[in-house]
């Protein structure tokens, strides 16, 4: 079973700072990490490979530094990693990103065959979750989003069953292979990397492709040019003025809080009319 995992290097959004003068992100303030959801996707691919054999390949689009994220995937257990990196890819929104990744996937598909594509649920910098379904649409394979469990893989019949998380539970869905899954964190725990993987990763050098290495690329669909969306303005979210503090003894505080909660009276089924 050959599995391809799309992975992205992202700034660690929990420590990123905003430049207050320009209202833009100060990327240098945040270390770049492997998108956490993608780590789970790689882990799941490695787990499936252990059961069904085959190969795990990771693919990323990004600047040359993104090699570090690919090496991290090799630590988790990926066999091979490709980075597509080229100025002409830069500035891509989700539509242009899915196009570029799709072009690389097509080439890998021709070279080695792919039974399954995995993506993270979303990337923590863009938070969109749009790239996975976009790739699936381009490949004309089903996207199964928000997957929390792979129930069954039947390579003979070329199909698999997964659990998809939905708002009020989950659904069990069956799909033909190849298909594309986007995974939630619940799907697995990312294991500590075994030493041999660490050694392999340290020495590993991902394969880098430019636009020219891909076949039949429509340059107009790449990067900034190929992106229908653009960022208009950015501004810092309003900070609330801080809480109005309620003093007094705890009974008084409780009473006051209840009153404030009743500002949202419509939320509560306060019985009126009929006296109790």
């Amino acid at each position: 079973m050959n599995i391809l995992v799309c992975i992205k290097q992202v700034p660690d959004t929990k420590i990123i700072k905003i430049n207050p003068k320009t209202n833009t992100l100060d990327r240098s303030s945040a270390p770049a990490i492997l998108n956490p959801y993608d780590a789970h996707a790689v882990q799941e691919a490695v787990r499936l490979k252990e059961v069904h054999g085959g190969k795990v390949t990771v693919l990323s689009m990004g600047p040359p530094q993104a090699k570090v994220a690919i090496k991290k995937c090799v630590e988790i257990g990926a066999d091979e990693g490709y980075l597509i990196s080229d100025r002409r890819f830069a500035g891509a929104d989700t539509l242009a990103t899915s196009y570029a990744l799709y072009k690389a996937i097509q080439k890998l598909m021709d070279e080695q065959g792919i039974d399954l594509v995995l993506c993270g649920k979303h990337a923590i910098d863009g938070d969109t979750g749009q790239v996975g379904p976009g790739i699936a649409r381009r490949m004309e394979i089903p996207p199964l989003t928000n997957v929390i469990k792979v129930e069954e893989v039947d390579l003979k019949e070329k199909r698999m069953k997964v659990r998809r998380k939905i708002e009020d539970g989950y659904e069990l869905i069956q799909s033909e292979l190849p298909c594309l899954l986007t995974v939630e964190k619940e799907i697995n725990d990312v294991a500590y990397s075994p030493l041999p993987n660490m050694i392999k990763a340290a020495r590993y050098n991902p394969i880098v492709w430019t636009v020219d290495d891909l076949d039949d690329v429509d340059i107009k669909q790449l990067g900034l040019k190929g992106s229908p969306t653009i960022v208009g303005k950015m501004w810092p979210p309003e900070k609330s003025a801080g809480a109005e503090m309620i003093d007094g003894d705890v009974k008084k505080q409780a009473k006051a809080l209840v009153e404030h909660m009743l500002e949202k009276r419509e939320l509560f089924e306060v019985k009126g009319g009929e006296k109790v």
Partner: protein
Amino acid sequence: MNMEEYRGVWVFIEQRNGELVDVGLELLGAGRDLADKLEVDLCGILLGHNVKDRAKDLFEYGADKVYVIDDPILELYRTETYMKAVGDLVRKYKPEIFLYGATANGKDLASAVATEVMTGLTADTTLLDVNLDKRLFEASRPAFGGNIMATILCKKHRPQMATVRPKVMKKADPQPGREGELIEESISVQEENLKTKVIDIVRDTNKAVNLEEADIIVAAGKGIKDEKGWKMVEELADVLNATVGASRDVVEMGICGHEHQVGQTGATVTPKLYIAIGISGAVQHVVGMQNSELIIAINTDPDAAIFNASHYGVVADAFEIVPLLTEEFRKVLQSGAEEGGVAHV
């Protein structure tokens, strides 16, 4: 692309088991404003099986037109059928703006349709407007873990699409008897040509921890210490009919499951009321709840950061004040009339 041909504001109406999901009605509320500004029709897109009757609800909530495809093959959501059906409608009727609820299926569908019709899509928006001079849709959203707000524009492609978080927009008051135009369309897909099949849906109705759609959340942090503290919080939640949330530390202590977690690596929530009990207010927690309408914090530490993100705060020991709140509220609910409560059932 001739952009002049694209007119009208569309809302995808999600249904589960034939019941309309709230976010669709909320988006009709928001879409109504956009449509009025642009002086165009507001249209609902309703797909499913035996759902046609629900169109009249959509008119009452503000839709001028409803496009319906009622077909057994659409009974359960599948990307491949819904994407095809919606893609065909877009190509035929050409809307300029198209909104979807940012639910699991809404996001899945919007992403697939954006690629299908090759247009821009902005995810998880919380603020919608139009620039009338340029006739451009302005879709804004928190970006980078909530550190910044960004307005996303789609200048040269139509429709301009966005997913919108549930509970952010407001439903209009329904106008009973309000009518509109029902347009029925069909889908030509054969089951045997499809690649996916929904085998089962397991609805966790009893103890569904549906934080994203909750109106009231009572959230526990490490300050509640242990299972006993958690129980105390659950009791308050019970009386309020609230969903219980938690900080990551509480999840990591094994007191509750990850499905309760609010924050950057948990759920992003926008309830009308959020009560934070024994939560310090780390940024990773705050980005997940800061857009709640009314936030109340209880903490023993007067300098806790959570107070900066709250509307009301008390410096108090949770173990003293929470049981009092539970008791006090129980009384209020039972004697609303005496308190001057407005009837609401």
